[in-house]
């Protein structure tokens, strides 16, 4: 089956909405299992005491990137139909900085 399934009309948009709940359930459950329900654990990285945030985040990004590359290479996923976040250098740099500040103040 050629992905992405909803843009390729293999699945209907309604099925995509049902999948949203599944994706959210998985994402939320795994984030909790990572310990990210705890604001103290989340912020611990910035006090050099617990690097779980970095380990989880980068493992997920690397697994995701490699997996997508393999799917694309096997022609199971059409890269042209993927939504790639557009590049706005200054907004993304300043936004990231503000979120970093808000993160340590608020604990997410």
């Amino acid at each position, binding site marked *: 089956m050629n992905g992405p399934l909803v843009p390729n009309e293999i699945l209907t948009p309604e099925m995509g909405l049902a999948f949203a709940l599944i994706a959210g359930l998985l994402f939320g459950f795994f984030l909790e299992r990572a310990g990210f329900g705890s604001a103290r654990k989340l912020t611990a990285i910035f006090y050099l005491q617990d690097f779980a945030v970095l380990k989880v985040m980068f493992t997920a990004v690397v697994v995701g*990137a490699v997996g997508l590359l393999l799917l694309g290479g096997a022609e199971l996923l059409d890269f042209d139909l993927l939504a790639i976040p557009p590049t706005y250098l200054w907004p993304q740099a300043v936004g*990231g900085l503000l*979120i970093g500040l808000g993160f340590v103040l608020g604990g997410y």
Partner: protein
Amino acid sequence: MNLQFAKQPAYWSPYLAGLAIGLTLILTYYVMGHGVGASGAYTQIAARMLEIEAPVHAQANIYLRRYLELGPLAQSWIVIEMFGVLLGGLLGALTARRFQFQIERGPGVAAEDRLLFALLGGILVGFGSRLAQGCTSGQALSGGAVLAVGSWLFTLAFFLGGYLFARVARRQWR
């Protein structure tokens, strides 16, 4: 601190949790053609709330109107997904018997101060995520996995911001 965390053995290895989240990302891209998100759901809900309170003003705002044109909240992918995230997190906490009402904070901080800082932090994160068109979910994770240049810059700036300002918030947590 380590002692406290050691009492909760049900946390997964960060590499296992990262693998699971990475696979969730791949599945989401494979089904939807986009990754996971979080902050966008709040923007859509905020736009709807403003529409209820001040419909003319909400419609006149170009930025919010774009979100209003996306249709009802119950048919919004990211709103449903965020509902799932809350549910999934709750399920995770319950099954690990970690669920409890608390205001997590450092030993020297009053609960009221913690809440005030949480509000302040939330405002900054909210504004920052609209500026960057995403948060740590939409930009760092999802954009990172498709190697978007701006998303990687976002991630670097996020960590830089955290380390730059960690001193000001130390009492909140440690």
